[in-house]
């Protein structure tokens, strides 16, 4: 597809790249070129091969066949991030930070500024502080990564990439964990880099973002190149259609009228816990309750306290009308209250284990027959989960760490669903998931709510919250600032509560 002219203008160009892991082919003769000063979006379903292509373009994987041209010159990219010397920088989809080290240490890892062997710590800290200010991130260069929230970690990754004077900046789902406000700040930086002539490749499942920021869009499906088009010619719907290969119906399912008289299965009164300051709310049977707010507003903290993952300082939790303080996660699980973490890599999945072991880990007591784990039942569960959540891996036997990001997320969802919850709390359920699967998940949430399961959806994606919730709770700084129902659930209202511009005390 790329004619001679574009090759001349492109900084980095992949020609008929194929890639197999072992015998399993993942990419089939994919071509893509990136020009200076453009934002080139790469979209496709989960497991389409986007991350793999990005890793090939930055030297982390070697292609099985095909050529890579840089400035028109064919070359073999050096491995292990050494392409940074050539100006090609990748932000990995999986967070790639050393947890025990500080922000500054991570940003400069591998290319510290030294003078006569000694680190210029002051200088490096200043540089990092500068970037942090630019991107509007309120952390110090001396903070440890392990103390940060996932979104903050993602921002640190972005800072790390920006600090490297890239000619080609490749970003694999950088915005998956960011809220809209943060994404906006981030896009400002992108615009700035673009103006400096940096070529940017951008992978995202948020198609509206793609539409907003990119100049050209390349679509992959099942490892095949489908199309490369100017973004201005495409609508998000058209993109989705090209990705999935079929017409997508409504993303969100119709919301059933909530049953006003349904009993309250969960009541939380004046809960105080780490990062939670006096939270009161209730959850009704069969209800989908959205939790919105800015990053770090304490939504996660509330439910970690409720589910026995964090200590409760004071307050009351009532389950089925009876006081229930879950002192351990297993007690919560046995009662049917399950929490799906937003940190799939750190807290959700065992990356060095197979899918089956991960799937059944949470609900393992269910699989125990005669003191031993029923492996046949496990295999059946795996089969069911693959069908139900459309988990796609070309090789059923790979470690979960080698699954594509979206498929990991689906597996995580399947894992908590294994224990047939009565209350399902899902934190950022569609992080890194393609539109097609998103739609499935939303329908799925609606369906289990209709069966009488109560669902709490914590999400930083406003449309998602609005699209699936019966009611929406908005939090700010560890407190609930408002509860929205019916027509009041709209972006405007949520933002005003989340930003602290409006506050109402609802006590029922």
């Amino acid at each position, binding site marked *: 597809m790329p004619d001679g002219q574009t090759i001349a203008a492109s900084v980095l160009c992949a020609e008929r790249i194929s890639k197999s*892991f*072992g*015998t399993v082919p993942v990419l089939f003769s994919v071509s893509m070129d990136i020009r200076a000063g453009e934002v080139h979006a790469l979209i496709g379903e989960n497991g389409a091969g986007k991350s793999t292509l990005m890793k090939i373009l930055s030297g982390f994987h*070697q292609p099985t066949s095909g050529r890579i041209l840089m400035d028109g010159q064919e070359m073999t990219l050096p*491995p292990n991030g050494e392409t940074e010397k050539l100006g090609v920088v990748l932000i990995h989809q999986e967070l790639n930070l050393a947890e025990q080290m500080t922000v500054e240490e991570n940003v400069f890892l591998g290319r510290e500024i030294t003078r006569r062997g000694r680190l210029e710590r002051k200088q490096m800290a200043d540089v990092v502080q500068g970037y942090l200010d630019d991107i509007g991130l309120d952390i110090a260069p001396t903070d440890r990564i392990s103390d940060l929230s996932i979104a903050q970690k993602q921002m640190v990754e972005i800072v790390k990439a920006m600090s490297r004077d890239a000619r080609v900046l490749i970003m694999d789902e950088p915005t998956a964990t960011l809220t809209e406000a943060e994404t906006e700040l981030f896009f400002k930086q992108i615009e700035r880099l673009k103006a400096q002539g940096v070529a940017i490749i951008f992978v995202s499942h948020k198609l509206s973002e793609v539409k907003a920021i990119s100049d050209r869009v390349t679509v992959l499906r099942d490892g095949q190149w489908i199309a490369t088009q100017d973004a201005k010619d495409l609508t998000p719907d058209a993109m989705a259609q090209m990705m999935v290969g079929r017409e997508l119906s409504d993303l969100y399912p119709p919301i059933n009228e909530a049953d006003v008289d349904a009993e309250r299965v969960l009541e939380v009164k004046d809960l105080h816990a780490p990062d939670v300051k006096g939270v009161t709310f209730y959850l009704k049977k069969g209800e989908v309750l959205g939790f919105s707010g800015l990053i770090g507003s304490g939504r996660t903290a509330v439910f970690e306290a409720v589910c026995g*993952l964090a200590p409760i300082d004071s307050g009351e939790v009532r389950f089925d009308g009876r006081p229930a303080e879950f002192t*351990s*996660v*297993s007690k*919560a*699980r046995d009662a049917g209250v399950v*929490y799906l*973490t937003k940190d799939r890599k*750190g*807290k*959700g*999945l*065992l*990356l*060095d*284990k197979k899918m089956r*072991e991960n799937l059944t*880990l*949470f609900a*393992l*007591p269910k*699989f*125990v027959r005669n*003191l*031993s*784990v029923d492996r046949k039942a496990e295999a059946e569960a795996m089969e069911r989960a693959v069908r139900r959540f459309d988990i796609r891996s070309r*090789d059923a*036997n*790979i*470690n979960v*760490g*080698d699954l594509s990001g979206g498929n990991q997320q689906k597996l995580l969802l399947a*894992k908590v669903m294994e224990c047939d919850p009565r209350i399902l709390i899902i934190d950022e359920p569609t992080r890194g998931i393609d539109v097609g699967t998103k739609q499935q998940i939303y329908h799925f949430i609606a369906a289990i709510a209709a069966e009488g399961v109560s669902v709490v959806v914590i999400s930083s994606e406003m449309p998602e919250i609005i699209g699936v919730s019966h009611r929406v709770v908005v939090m700010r700084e560890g407190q609930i600032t408002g509860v929205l129902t019916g027509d009041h659930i709209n972006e405007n209202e949520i933002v005003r509560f989340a930003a602290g511009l409006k506050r109402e005390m609802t006590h029922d």
Partner: protein
Amino acid sequence: MTETAMTQTPKSRFQSFDFKTAGPAIALILLCIIGFLLNPAFLSEGNITNLLTRSAFIGIIAVGATFVITAGGIDLSVGSMAAVIAGVMIIVMNGAVETFGTGVTTVLIGCGCSVILGIGAGFINGFLTTKGKIEAFIVTLGTMGIFRSLVTYFADGGTLSLNYDIRGVYRPVYYDSFAGLPIPVWVFIIVSICGWLLLNRTAFGRYCTAIGSNESVAKYSAIKVDRIKTWTYVLQGLCVSLATIIYVPRLGSASSSTGVLWELEAIAAVIIGGTVLKGGYGRIGGTILGALILTTIGNILNFTDMISNYLNGTMQGLIIIVAVWLQRGDWGRKNKAN
């Protein structure tokens, strides 16, 4: 963790023959061939029996260690624990003679006491590690010193010897055979099978692996991390007590030099067998082979006088390194690895 993930991944499918599993077995077979070439008596029935019986001690302890290590812990105290348990067993049995005579009852009392002590000592290690939140290395280094000095104290620096009359009753536990195999070997086999089932077929085993692989994931998966970890140490204690029960009738004595360095041998057996020291991946079968390999090395060195006695340690060290290198099993793929 990361390391394993990386080394295991590449194209394990291509290998119709799984080296990672077969590695220790191959190393053991090679050793046996060497032993036979040095001296055909190596493969005599008597020697094989001796070898298996000897492996039983370290092997049983190593089965316990496999759980501890798989769950990301470490236990340096096992050798000293064996010594102190043996010592207390002997004191208790000698004391029980007056009341219960020199019959089976006394021996059973001794064994019961051993089991209780093993479980208790393991629980202390586990409790301090989990609830005390002290690094396992430090806790068990501490208890290692404590147990060792306690047995020295009980023995008054010397040797505790079992009453001669009880010895007669207790002796068969070490020296007798059943269906051609000595009792200690049977105990070893049973412990191994139980250990294998526990690690590979029960929820407990899964939980150990999960904790060793990623403790936070385990916690978020409703696993009682502290409880499971404590259990691994208790299990280790139980294994030590079983090993001690078959050790005591052998020479009927315990002293401060009993079980010195068993901890290193046990851990080495576990690692040689392919379990990952940082946790998350355990193999009981490998552990058993590891214990056999270690014992065989010592045995072979006793079968030849080609090497200066002083260099035994050198041979031992070299063989261990080579055995583990062999079991990596990717010497063929060396160049292809990036």
